[in-house]
């Protein structure tokens, strides 16, 4: 394995403050994220030679159209269409390219608009399978698919709604004071969680992410470039990417993380018990549970007990989804996976904008995406470690 692959830095985390609905175009949101990232990096935009954009709503444009739009000249342009797995997939690709010397500085950007109809348009035309075998059944969208996955999980492993609620409530506590969390001023308690209106039983209001307009981004570069620029940065210790794993499981109880978990920790040179904070892909709390299990923090079906054993601070905060996750920040389409990446990067570089986990030196970030038919197909994970703190 190339030694350079272990010398990759992530830096310049930036998050837009999301809006529930916005008339802004996706092109504008991308431009705002990239401007924010480059300002954090104190680097002229013209020095970028790599651009990775994840978005569901960029059409008719593509990443290369954005290269011209933004006035860049690039050696690497990528548009991973892996939903919430896109951010880490982009980092994984960019890390290899940077290590090989094929590109120097890559912006990893996710952004999606949200006007009154964009979310239902994305869902209705999401895929041929979804159009044929999910949408005709009441047009519930991902809520219906993940209600079925949640019901099956609860039955199989004996999890209760209170178990999911404990995580959702802790995440909302984490979000208080985070400037880019849409529910930063809206704390949640377990009784409000339990009595919320049903969306797709057993899922109720606080189990479901709110679609928003927004975007997130950061840079990938060689550590020596981050050092030379004096930027706070995180090191990439390991990355994982696996799609359509365990396709014979009749209902999803695990994802691609479980298939490659051992290789992931071997690549990282560390173990789950050394991780200081975990950023799951929390489109629904059951998926956070599955990621905790698949990535080796606990055994299959044991996530509820694992969450109970974690130490909370005096404000009820847990080191899982430290800025509140998507359940508190909202889901800006394909940028939902960038949210955890950018937050994990902040935690290990001393750049947290809300709650800073004490002495956070390593962050596990997971991505998940593309409910094509009855499950999400794409699984990613990254382990980030403190490089240089702010």
């Amino acid at each position: 394995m190339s030694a350079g692959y272990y010398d990759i830095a992530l830096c310049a985390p930036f998050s837009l403050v999301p809006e529930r609905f916005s008339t802004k175009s996706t092109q504008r949101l991308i431009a705002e994220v990239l401007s924010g990232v480059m300002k954090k990096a104190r680097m002229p935009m013209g020095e970028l030679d790599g651009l990775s954009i994840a978005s569901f709503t960029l059409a008719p444009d593509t990443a290369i159209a954005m290269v011209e739009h933004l006035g860049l000249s690039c050696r690497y342009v990528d548009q991973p269409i892996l939903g919430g797995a896109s951010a880490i997939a982009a980092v994984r690709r960019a890390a290899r390219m940077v290590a090989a010397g094929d590109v120097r500085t890559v912006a990893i950007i996710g952004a999606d608009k949200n006007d009154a109809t964009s979310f239902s348009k994305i869902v209705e035309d999401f895929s041929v399978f979804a159009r044929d075998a999910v949408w005709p059944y009441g047009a519930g969208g991902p809520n219906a698919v993940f209600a079925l996955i949640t019901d099956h999980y609860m039955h199989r492993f004996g999890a209760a709604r209170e178990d999911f609620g404990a995580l959702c409530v802790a995440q909302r506590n984490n979000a208080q004071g985070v400037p880019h969390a849409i529910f930063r001023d809206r704390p949640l308690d377990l009784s409000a969680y339990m009595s919320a209106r049903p969306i797709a039983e057993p899922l109720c209001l606080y189990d479901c992410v709110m679609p928003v307009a927004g975007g997130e981004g950061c840079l990938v570069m060689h550590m020596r470039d981050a050092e030379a620029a004096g930027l706070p940065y995180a090191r990439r210790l390991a990355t994982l990417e696996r799609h359509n794993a365990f396709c014979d499981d009749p209902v999803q109880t695990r994802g691609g993380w479980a298939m490659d978990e051992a290789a992931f920790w071997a690549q990282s040179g560390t173990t789950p018990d050394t991780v200081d904070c975990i950023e799951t892909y929390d489109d629904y709390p059951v998926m956070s549970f599955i990621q905790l299990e698949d990535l080796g923090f606990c055994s299959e079906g044991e996530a509820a007990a694992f969450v109970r054993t974690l130490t909370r601070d005096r404000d009820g905060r847990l080191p899982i989804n430290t800025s509140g996750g998507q359940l508190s920040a909202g889901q800006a389409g394909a940028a939902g996976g960038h949210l955890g990446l950018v937050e994990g990067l902040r935690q290990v570089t001393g750049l947290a904008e809300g709650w800073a986990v004490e002495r956070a030196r390593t962050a596990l970030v997971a991505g998940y995406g593309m409910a094509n038919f009855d499950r999400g197909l794409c699984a990613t994970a990254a382990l980030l470690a403190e490089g240089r703190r702010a």
Partner: protein
Amino acid sequence: MSALTLPHCPSCGAFHWPARTICPHCHTLLPEGAPWAPADSRGTVLARTSLHVSLDTAFDASLPRALATVALRAGPQVIAFAPTAFEIGDPVNVSLSQDHHGRQVLSAAPATRQDDN
């Protein structure tokens, strides 16, 4: 006795769902427009939901609407309309019909004794 037809691979005999262009089991390229084949309609409920919110206002009048994931004896698992009284593990029969858009939709009904589930 089954009224259910499903996409089918003439090469390995396996059923699949949703319809595909290639068999996901043996990777045989399927003939274009191949007819669906009669399939065992019996199955078991794996998961249930009651949908209270729809993204299509055409469904609003029929909410809440019960759905289930059903493991068919024929092989694939499907999402189907369901009665509200189902429990996980219940035996069901799945049938195919057309909705008002002309789309093929699956519905699960309680299995009767004669169905020998």
